[in-house]
């Protein structure tokens, strides 16, 4: 054996040669290897450095619980930190780097912290770095932050894709070892819809790692038969490379399928990972058991690993952890470990069995009974071990086994705690009922025959059981083995966080004896493996230190995620511009033709301004205003919410929704309405038109359309269910355009099929159904947000752009212009109309100057609470207009208002500017503000205080209506 690759055996394809690098060094492995097994086979045992002391580390496990062998995988935007080498399937061209070391993994300056490790005990940082005060942020903390952390994350966008999917099944089986395969088979043969998921690259679980016999053949051969049968059944979905990472309410399981992580880059059209939400009627947890390390000195040294890991590397990956091995533990599994290793030609120096007696067969290996490994000796690799009795044994590796912890994590994600079994020396899963059962070694069934039978039983709870194959069982007996106190060196409990066995008694001594406090104080169990290996040892040590039993100490809380999940998986395809859907109006194409600049308004894209050459937004918007007020303009207002309200009680229903009255509205007319919340605060506003006796169409603001719809549904269904009314959003059915300005009527007249537009036929606030352009059904409203003689024309959406073009053509002779929301906003501020800045969820009808609209004659939502003293106080801030004393001055939204001579302070604060606009009509900045007792203070000169932007001007409080106070233009 020149390398550490065994001459034969293993589930690797020796005909392949996969080239990969680790810290720049080129190595070769085989298909079927993990990065960890390939490194071991190449004789590379130093794989990383620990968090605090920068101790040299190698693999401790061969699986998902690995705390030590974390690497930076891939490069550029695909770089991922902290990837467990034990879970990385080797591929040709793999690039990996060690982490948390400088200048190199082999020579790491950070390891100097080990010299001061007697100071750097658990929680030391809470006791120091406090003097001098300023040093914490300037000196201590930056050093700590640089030293802490593990890998370096990329700051480049991820080029790969991710996907999400739902799945439904009758039975979800988690884990595909002997238990899981039997459970899946039993359920599948009953024609249940089955999903079988396993985190490993191949199904088979421990049967891929161990030397077993089932049904007269090898465990591996047996898995191949079962997997083939399952694979042929249409009711079965097999999900290898899929980690079930959480169990949630409703028996919903979160899972991540690593679709392409075993490839250098994903295939075209394939995602890197797929996130599954699995709705399972029933689930069986067959996740197996985690072997626990033993706390002895140097139990973190490269070469020391769990016994099952060492077996797995030999059996599955044909990789030897060392040429000569000491096997140490307190249960019978150490004997099969020695046997397996020997079968591969690895020399086992001795079995060190902490128990004085054991019936297990050592098959010729020397056994030291009642003995303990106290320290591993070496540095970057094990050279020997010292036993507690002083015996010294040379070896290259140590296989350790403190026992087995059932992998109960998922079964505890919904709050129940595992239960200690003093005989089995394990925390058993809690009872979660039929919907989620635990089987096999995850339920502490330690014999293969028990696992097969348990899987078969729990896979099919009803109907005919399937036959359980015969198998060879390995005897199993266990005694406690947690911490070898005779150790001289550091004995690690939490490898990654460098929490040692001595840290726990210290925590207890200082008052942090509750398991949760001890965890937080020592950071035990807070590393990327979340205590999968070490927490059990911590509990045992804490129990002893405080004179409690294991169950009195108890576990910390098991929480999602079973293993860490990439942000990308949870994000799926909703990245970048696809974060949220884009909503386009029916006039979008037309607006684009007109050169619109669009702005995000909620999910909508609205046309904001329509610049001509050389214009910035202000120049464009100003021109649009002047053009509209001077002649005619057209604006896309399709985003306003439109709700069809029909039924015998439609008017009555609207009366309940709005603070003013709609049941009295004449057919063919529109009315402005103000809607309150039940707490008396204004919710929304808009016009509602009556198209027929039993048919209204409501409009809402763009921002509140969905909320208002939900409020209506609530009001009807939960509050007033006996009203005969229906309502449905028709927002998207209609393309709606405002046509405003003195030439709006002659412009629109050209489109009308029959209607002759006059003040009599289309009076102010008219709402008519009309026919345009040779038969297109349309709705014509004489409404005005701009303050001009204006209309809103609604046409079925597919005709929207066509009609808008026709309006443009019709208005051409008048010099029509498209205008956007910027111009709209300027005109509304000129006119003192309230919008989002004033409808801010804290203003009352009175604050907005609409107190008179509030009916006292009927019940409506918000009526009673609006009467509270705090909402009727005259000193409340009310909407006012504001304009600079010096017309050359600019005021800005968000500036606060102070009395003329007051100094800035919150006590002196009188209100703030809610919205401003450069008024091209008035040739100055004007605004609206919320101002204490505002309506009584028109004419007052105030400071507009904008300390945030270093700006302060004097301004006059005035009527909100800055322009055309008599509303003459409306009727012009």
């Amino acid at each position, binding site marked *: 054996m020149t390398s550490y690759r065994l001459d034969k055996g293993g589930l690797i394809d020796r005909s392949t040669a996969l080239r990969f690098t680790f810290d720049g060094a080129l190595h070769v492995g085989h298909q079927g290897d993990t990065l960890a097994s390939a490194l071991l086979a190449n004789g590379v045992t130093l794989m990383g450095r620990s968090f605090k002391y920068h101790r040299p580390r190698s693999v401790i496990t061969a699986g998902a619980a690995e705390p030590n062998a974390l690497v930076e995988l891939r490069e550029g935007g695909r770089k991922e930190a902290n990837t467990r080498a034990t879970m990385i399937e080797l591929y040709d061209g793999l690039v990996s780097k060690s982490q948390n070391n400088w200048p190199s993994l082999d020579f790491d300056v950070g390891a100097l912290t080990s010299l001061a490790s007697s100071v750097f005990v658990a929680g030391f940082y809470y006791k120091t770095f406090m003097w001098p005060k300023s040093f914490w942020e300037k000196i201590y903390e930056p050093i700590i932050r640089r030293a802490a952390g593990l890998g370096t994350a990329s700051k480049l966008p991820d080029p790969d894709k991710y996907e999400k999917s739902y799945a439904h099944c009758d039975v979800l089986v988690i884990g595909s070892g002997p238990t899981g395969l039997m459970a899946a088979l039993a359920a599948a043969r009953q024609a249940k819809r089955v999903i079988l998921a396993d985190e490993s690259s191949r199904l088979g679980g421990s049967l891929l790692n161990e030397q077993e016999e089932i049904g007269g053949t090898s465990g591996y051969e047996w898995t191949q038969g079962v997997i083939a049968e399952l694979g042929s059944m249409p009711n079965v979905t097999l999900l290898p490379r899929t980690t079930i990472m959480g169990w949630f309410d409703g028996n919903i399981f979160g899972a991540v399928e690593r679709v392409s992580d075993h490839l250098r880059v994903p295939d075209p059209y394939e995602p890197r990972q797929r996130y599954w939400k699995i709705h399972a009627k029933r689930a069986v947890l067959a996740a197996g058991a985690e072997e626990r390390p033993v706390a002895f000195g140097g139990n973190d040294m490269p070469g020391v690993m769990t016994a099952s890991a060492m077996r797995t590397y030999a059996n599955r990956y044909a990789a030897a952890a060392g040429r000569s091995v000491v096997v140490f533990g307190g249960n019978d599994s150490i004997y099969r470990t020695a046997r397996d290793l020997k079968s591969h030609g690895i020399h086992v120096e001795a079995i060190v069995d902490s128990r004085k007696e054991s019936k297990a067969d050592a098959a010729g290996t020397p056994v030291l009974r009642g003995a303990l490994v106290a320290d591993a000796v070496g540095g970057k690799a094990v050279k020997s071990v010292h036993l507690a009795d002083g015996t010294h044994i040379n070896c290259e590796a140590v296989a350790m086994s403190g026992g087995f912890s059932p992998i109960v994590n998922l079964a505890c994600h919904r709050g129940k705690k595992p239960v200690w079994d003093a005989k089995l020396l394990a925390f058993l899963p809690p009872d979660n009922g039929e919907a989620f059962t635990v089987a096999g070694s995850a339920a502490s069934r330690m014999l293969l025959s028990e696992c097969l039978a348990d899987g078969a039983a729990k896979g099919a709870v009803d109907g005919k059981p399937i036959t359980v194959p015969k198998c060879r069982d390995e005897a199993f007996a266990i005694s406690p083995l947690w911490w070898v106190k005779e150790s001289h060196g550091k004995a690690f409990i939490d490898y990654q966080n460098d929490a040692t066995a001595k840290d726990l008694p210290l925590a207890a001594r200082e008052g942090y004896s509750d398991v949760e406090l001890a965890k937080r104080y020592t950071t035990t169990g807070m590393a990327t493996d979340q205590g999968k290996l070490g927490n059990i040892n911590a509990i045992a040590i804490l129990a002893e230190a405080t004179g409690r039993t294991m169950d009195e100490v108890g576990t910390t809380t098991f929480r999602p995620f079973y293993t860490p999940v990439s942000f990308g998986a949870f994000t799926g395809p909703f990245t970048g511009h696809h974060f949220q859907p884009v909503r386009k109006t029916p006039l979008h194409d037309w607006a684009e033709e007109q050169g619109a600049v669009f702005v995000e308004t909620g999910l909508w894209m609205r046309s904001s301004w329509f610049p001509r050459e050389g214009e910035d937004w202000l120049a464009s918007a100003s021109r649009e205003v002047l053009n509209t007020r001077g002649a005619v303009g057209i604006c896309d207002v399709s985003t306003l919410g439109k709700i069809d309200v029909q039924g015998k009680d439609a008017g009555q229903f609207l009366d309940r929704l709005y603070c003013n009255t709609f049941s009295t509205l004449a057919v063919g007319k529109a009315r402005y309405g103000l809607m309150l919340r039940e*707490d008396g605060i204004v919710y929304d506003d808009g016009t509602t038109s009556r198209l027929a006796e039993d048919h209204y169409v409501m409009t809402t603001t763009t921002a509140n359309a969905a909320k208002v719809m*939900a409020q209506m*549904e609530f009001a009807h269904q*939960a509050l007033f269910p006996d009203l005969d009314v229906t309502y449905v959003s028709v927002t998207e059915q209609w393309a709606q355009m405002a046509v405003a300005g003195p030439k709006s009527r002659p412009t629109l007249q050209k489109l009308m099929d029959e209607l002759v537009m006059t003040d009599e036929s289309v009076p102010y606030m008219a709402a008519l159904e009309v026919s345009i352009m040779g038969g297109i059904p349309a709705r014509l409203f004489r409404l005005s947000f701009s303050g001009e003689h204006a209309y809103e024309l609604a046409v079925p959406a597919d005709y929207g752009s066509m009609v808008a073009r026709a309006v443009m053509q019709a208005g051409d002779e008048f010099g029509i212009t498209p205008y956007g929301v910027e111009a709209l906003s300027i005109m509304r501020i000129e006119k003192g109309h309230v919008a989002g800045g004033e409808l801010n969820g804290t203003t009352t009808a009175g604050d907005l100057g609409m107190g008179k609209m509030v009916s006292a004659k009927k019940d409506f939502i918000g009526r*009673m609470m609006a009467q509270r003293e705090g909402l009727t106080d005259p000193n409340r801030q009310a909407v006012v207009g504001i304009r600079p004393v010096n017309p050359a001055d600019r005021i800005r939204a968000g500036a606060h208002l102070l009395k003329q001579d007051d100094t800035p302070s919150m006590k002196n604060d009188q209100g703030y500017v809610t919205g401003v606009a450069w008024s091209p009509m008035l040739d100055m900045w004007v605004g609206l503000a919320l101002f204490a007792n505002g309506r009584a203070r028109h004419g007052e000169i105030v400071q507009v205080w904008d300390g945030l932007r270093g700006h302060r001007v004097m301004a006059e409080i005035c009527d909100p209506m800055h322009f055309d106070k008599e509303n003459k233009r409306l009727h012009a």
Partner: protein
Amino acid sequence: MLIPCPHCGTRPVEEFTFLGDAAPTRPTTNDPSTMEAWYEYVYLRNNPRGAIEEYAHHSGGCRSWLVVSRNTETHEVFGAVPARDFTRAKGAKA
């Protein structure tokens, strides 16, 4: 969490919007003497640890308001009825 929508069948929580306890009843008069009752209706909640009947809007589905029976401590869901039926039943009892 799965909610058994009486109209759509069982759907997951992501399709629903919640509005809290359905126990408070909107007073039926606007008489000034009922201010206290209105205040309690709008602001005070039992906020139980355990069983609750709560408003849920199937906003990502049929848009019906439901009253869901659920345990706030375990998130166990017992059932759901249309809010309309719940309100009528409450009215009938009163």
